[in-house]
C-alpha cells in the first residue's frame, strides 16, 4: 500500500519536472529539472524491484551525464531563449497534436498489455551482473568498452581547438 502511494508521488514529481524541462526557456533550469526527473525515476526503479538499475541511474545519469550538461551550459554561458519563437504557431500546434496522438495510440496498446507479474522477482546487483556476464551478453559488453573508447577519442577530437 505504501509502495503505491510512494510510486504515484514520484511519478507525479517525474512528470511535473519533465514538463518543466520542456516548458522552461532557460536551459540551466531545464537541466536542474531533468536531474529531479532522473532522481524520481531512480526511486521508481527501486520500487519496481531493481536496486541495481536505481543506483546506476543516479551514478551515470544524474551524476555523470547531467554534470556534463551543466558544465557545457555554464561553459558556453547560455542565455535564455528570448523573444517570440521563430516557429510558426501552426508547427507548435501540430507538434502538440501529434504528441497527443502518440500518447493515445501507444497508451491503448500498453493498456491492453495486462500480464500478471510473477512473484519472487529478484533483480539484485548480483543477479543482474550474473546475467550481464553470461555468455549471452559477454561480447556485447566487451563491444561497449570499444564504443566508449571511440566516443572518448571522438569527443576530444571534436571539441579540440584547431591550430
Amino acid at each position, binding site marked *: 500500500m505504501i509502495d503505491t502511494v510512494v510510486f504515484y508521488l514520484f511519478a507525479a514529481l*517525474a512528470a511535473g519536472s519533465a514538463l518543466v524541462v520542456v516548458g522552461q526557456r532557460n536551459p540551466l533550469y531545464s537541466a536542474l529539472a531533468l536531474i529531479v526527473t532522473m532522481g524520481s525515476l531512480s526511486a521508481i526503479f527501486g520500487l519496481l*524491484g531493481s536496486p541495481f538499475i536505481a543506483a546506476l541511474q543516479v551514478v551515470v545519469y544524474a551524476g555523470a551525464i547531467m554534470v556534463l550538461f551543466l558544465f557545457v551550459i555554464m561553459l558556453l554561458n547560455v542565455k535564455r531563449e528570448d523573444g517570440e519563437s521563430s516557429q510558426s504557431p501552426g508547427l507548435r500546434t501540430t507538434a502538440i497534436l501529434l504528441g497527443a496522438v502518440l500518447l493515445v495510440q501507444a497508451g491503448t496498446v500498453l493498456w491492453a498489455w495486462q500480464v500478471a507479474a510473477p512473484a519472487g522477482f529478484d533483480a539484485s546487483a548480483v543477479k543482474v551482473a550474473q546475467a550481464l556476464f553470461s555468455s549471452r551478453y559477454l561480447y556485447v559488453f566487451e563491444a561497449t568498452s570499444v564504443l566508449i573508447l571511440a566516443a572518448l577519442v571522438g569527443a576530444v577530437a571534436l571539441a579540440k581547438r584547431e591550430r
Partner: protein
Amino acid sequence: MSGALAQPALMLSLLLFTIGVVGVFLRRNVITVFMCVELMLNAVNLAFVAFSRQMGTLDGQVLVFFVMTVAAAEAAVGLAIIIAIHRHKDTLDVDAFNLMKW
C-alpha cells in the same frame, strides 16, 4: 507486491516519452533539445524495467545497462559537437544550423 506497479510504470514511461518528443519540436535551444532526447532515453529505460518486472526476466535490466552506456557516449560526443558548432556559429539556435539542410 511491486508487480502491480509495472502497468502504471509503463504509462508513466509513455507520458515521459511523449513529453520528450514534443519538447524536441517546441524548443529552439540545441542543448534543451538534447536534454529532451535524454528524457526519451530515460522513459525507454523505465519501459524496459517495467517489462522486465512483468515478464520476470533479467534481459530488460541488462538492456538498460547498455542503453545507459550508449547514452553516456552519446552525451559526450553530442556536447562536443555542440561546443564545436557554437565556436563556428556563435549561437545555439537550431534554426541557425542549416548548412546540410536541403
